[in-house]
């Protein structure tokens, strides 16, 4: 029964050499955030924010799948990306900076709009 190194029980008995000797975070998050029965509690947390977070994590969790759907195997070709030369890397850096800036600006805009709408106060 314990012959295969891949049938890994969770917890302290997990075999060494596996990244998830404790339960891996992806396993837990995909369950506690997305699954489990939803019953109405007294404190209504802002569902919009939870959804934003869940979507963010879902993208993270599913990005490999998505890339494959697009027919892209970047997980195979990370090294070839790095071999793209300094010019390419510079391009990546500026693009990333731009994305970060846009992300920040969008967050700020969202906060302003939420404040104006009074989201999070009696919003039902």
């Amino acid at each position, binding site marked *: 029964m314990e012959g295969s190194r891949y049938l890994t029980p969770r917890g302290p008995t997990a075999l060494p050499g596996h990244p998830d000797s404790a339960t891996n975070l992806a396993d837990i998050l995909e*369950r506690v955030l997305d699954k489990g029965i939803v*019953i109405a509690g007294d404190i209504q947390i802002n569902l919009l924010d939870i959804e934003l977070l869940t979507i963010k994590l879902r993208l993270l*969790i599913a990005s490999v799948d998505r890339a494959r759907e697009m027919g892209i195997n970047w997980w195979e070709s990370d090294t070839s990306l790095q071999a793209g030369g300094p010019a390419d890397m510079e391009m990546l850096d500026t693009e990333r900076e731009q994305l970060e800036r846009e992300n920040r600006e969008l967050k700020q805009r969202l906060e302003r709009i939420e404040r104006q709408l009074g989201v999070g106060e009696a919003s039902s």
Partner: protein
Amino acid sequence: MTDLADWARGRAPELLERAEREAVAILRDALLDAALGDRARDREAGRRRARQAPPAAAATPSKREAQGHALWAYCVLRAGDPLPGRLPGVHPDAPVEPLEDDGLVVLTSRIPLAEFGEEPLRENLNDLSWLERVARAHESVLEGALTGGPIVPLRLCTIFTDEAGVRTMLARDGRQLREALERLDGRREWGVKLLVDRDALAAAARERSPEVAALQDEAAERSGGGAYMHERRLERLVGEVVDRLAAELADDVHARLGDWAADSVLNPPQNRELSGHEGEMLLNGAYLVEIERTDGLRRLLHELEDRHKELGARLQLTGPWPPYNFVSREAGAPA
């Protein structure tokens, strides 16, 4: 001349592929930054917000929530089933306590509103290290409760003002909770992931596909631009065969496990940055299995792994889990 045109045509997919690859790398980095690396920035934003005192919207719930306590609910059990021993809750100051009413038990613990009130909660949930701590604490309470009878796991952040709030919920949703408990009795959720090594799949594709073999033979005879284009065609064909093999493999594993299980759910493959897995994840399934069939499940996994050995298939079993994946379809009263 034709060689040149061939060469140009051959280059086009490569350039396109490279552009796509770069676009995905940028997107991935941005997403990772947003979810994993932004913690410091989020905290900074939080401080800024705190400094800009909120507009005097006097009697908002957040004002009331600033102090005091509430109850965090973990899961629902049947009254009379063995209760777990003393477990730590999501906040270190308060252990988990059972709250019984009308034949049901809810595991709860006290939480300070300064951290878990609506406003702070919203911010904390976007801090991955806070989220990880709370998610793990929530999970370990549920795991502690698993040793008794069936449990209905509640989603993270099910919060009640006080005990009366929990009792109101039990009166409202009790029937549905009892039905779920009955259905889950004697069953456990297991997670199964199918991982493959893309190189092993490519090798199998080269061996098994007659089209690939034919192209390979032809390629050996070509030279110059024609040979280049030929190689590109071969690569694409191998890619297609690999995808087909992967899909067939995942289908076979899921179908066999699905037959064995009382119920099954397919989830999207996980991202390596969070899960740390090696190889490519082709399947991420959850299976609800009768407790007495657990050994059979393990045997089936070994058998499947063995059957698909030459494709480099590895099956990873996790669990038993609280049956998260088998209660979400009966979502309770709308929020």
